[in-house]
């Protein structure tokens, strides 16, 4: 398999981080801070909590860097740390009542470009809120797989590594998540039955 140039660059960066290079660590944060933050927001649903977790995750990355070995993708390693940390934190907040507060869509939910009609803006915001609520209602296992595949755009193999499950299980969980979400959301607004 040909080497992915982006992954090669990540490995080179990570090798410097392993040696204690703070500048390289900053570059790694610049590159992966946003994806990890987005992943944690989607996984936990709480933006303030996700900020804390993002910082914690990168602290863990810094601490674990001396033991890092270039055996897989850096992104897989980062997301795996993020997943473990997020699950631990969410478990502390009790599995039965995750801190998922879908529905508080930020101003960013409204596209800045163009000038849609107020009714359309409201519909989009409501749609985004409904989708977030539906995601929040998924079990953590299904949500993890769905977030990695659909929202982070990872492939089956990488998702399987991060989730720590076989590829076949990733597929079945993705299917279960999709079915649960579709059943919960119903048809998109404005669609005829």
């Amino acid at each position, binding site marked *: 398999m040909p080497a992915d140039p982006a992954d090669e660059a990540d490995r080179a960066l990570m090798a410097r981080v392993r040696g204690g290079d*703070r500048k390289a660590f*900053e570059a790694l*944060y*610049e590159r992966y*801070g*946003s994806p*990890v*933050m*987005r992943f944690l*927001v*989607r996984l936990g649903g709480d*933006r*303030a909590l*996700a*900020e*804390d977790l*993002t*910082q914690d995750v*990168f*602290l863990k990355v*810094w601490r674990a860097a001396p033991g890092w070995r270039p055996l897989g993708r850096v992104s897989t390693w980062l997301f795996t740390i993020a997943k473990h940390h997020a699950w631990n934190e969410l478990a*502390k907040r009790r599995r*039965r*009542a*995750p*801190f998922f*507060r879908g529905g508080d*869509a*930020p101003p*960013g*939910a409204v596209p800045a470009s163009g000038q849609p009609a107020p009714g359309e803006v409201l519909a*989009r915001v409501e*749609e*985004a809120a409904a*989708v*977030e609520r539906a995601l929040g209602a998924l079990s953590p296992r299904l949500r993890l797989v769905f977030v990695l*595949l*659909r*929202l982070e755009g990872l*492939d*089956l193999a990488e998702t399987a590594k991060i989730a720590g499950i076989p590829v076949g299980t990733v*597929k*079945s969980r*993705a*299917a279960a998540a*999709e*079915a649960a*979400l*579709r059943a919960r*959301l119903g048809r*998109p607004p404005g669609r005829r039955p």
Partner: protein
Amino acid sequence: MARPPRHADLVARALDVLPDAERRVVDRAIEADPSLREHYEAIAGHLLRYDHLPPAPPPPPFAHLAEALDREAAPDLRILRLAGRGARPRRGLAWAAAALVALGVALWAPWTSRRPSGELQLVQGLGLRVARDGVTLPARAPTVRAVRPGDVLTCERPAEARLGPRVHLVLDGGGTLRVDGGEAVTLLSGRAFFEVAPGAFRVDTPYGRVRVLGTAFDVDLREGSLAVAVAHGRVDAAGTEVGPGASWRKGRLAPLQDAPGSWFRRPQLDLELVDPTGVVLGRPLALVLAFHNPGNLPLTLDGPGTSRTPVWVRFETADGALLGELPVLSANVTKGLELLEPGGAVTLAPGARAELAVRILPPIGSPGAYRCEALYRPQDQPAVLSSSLAIEVR
């Protein structure tokens, strides 16, 4: 793939994560079977809905992370650093560090052979007294000294110290703490805050035992009872007040009894870390108050000495000036809790538990505007209710 595509295959195809060979097989099946195509289109249409999710906020600036790394790099020198602030040439620091290492290597072997078994290093600030066999040892300036199991630490005002390599403690004024070893202490009176590196550690009290699994927490023996406040991590507590085997994460167990005035609360800032000169070194970012009604009768949470004191969170400066108050209860709470009046006292049903989390964003440390967020979640109810308050510190 010899079998017809299943739902999982269609979802994987719509997510575009199938290997090429499988994708071709699924595509052919979809083209050949109208019902399968309809099913696939429903899935693909549904997945498009996630394109419109609001963007995630940006991550915290790297400067915040860098600060945390700097704090982590030299946590043990917090007290000693007070006297040595200021820029120094890096070369000088390197020479000094090398000299210290050499000195340490030279002294380590004979020192350890002289050291009595079980002796621990105590890096202490001002104000902490050490008594051995009933005799108070001579007071010293901020320094490193050896303590042994059985030594008793006391102080008149909050004092901070490091006990061995893993335990950072702040003993409140008037508190008494006995060192039982590197992994155990006994809080004889008052209150102490502990920050413990991962590993076994326990705090015994006359009213129960607190077992620690790598965390920051405090133990309070005021009013003849045991209360545990956890800043982060996990603490197991067992004793006459907390019941057998209670385990709390980020929680405080209030010693509730079916009698008026038995519940008490403590201002949030009690958890602050203060150095010997009075400089606040840190405050917890979050604190969760946890209540539990272990009895068979409904129990009303009231303030001490009054019948209907509102349950609120109060924010104060270090010198006690009021910053603001936040009524933390919402009228939407129904399960297990009965709200008597908005922002007021509540009743816990038998066996009910409730948690109340308060976050200060960012931690109050200097003049400026702050936002406080309270999150409230009754047991068995998935909804998290929140309320917020703007605080201005001048």
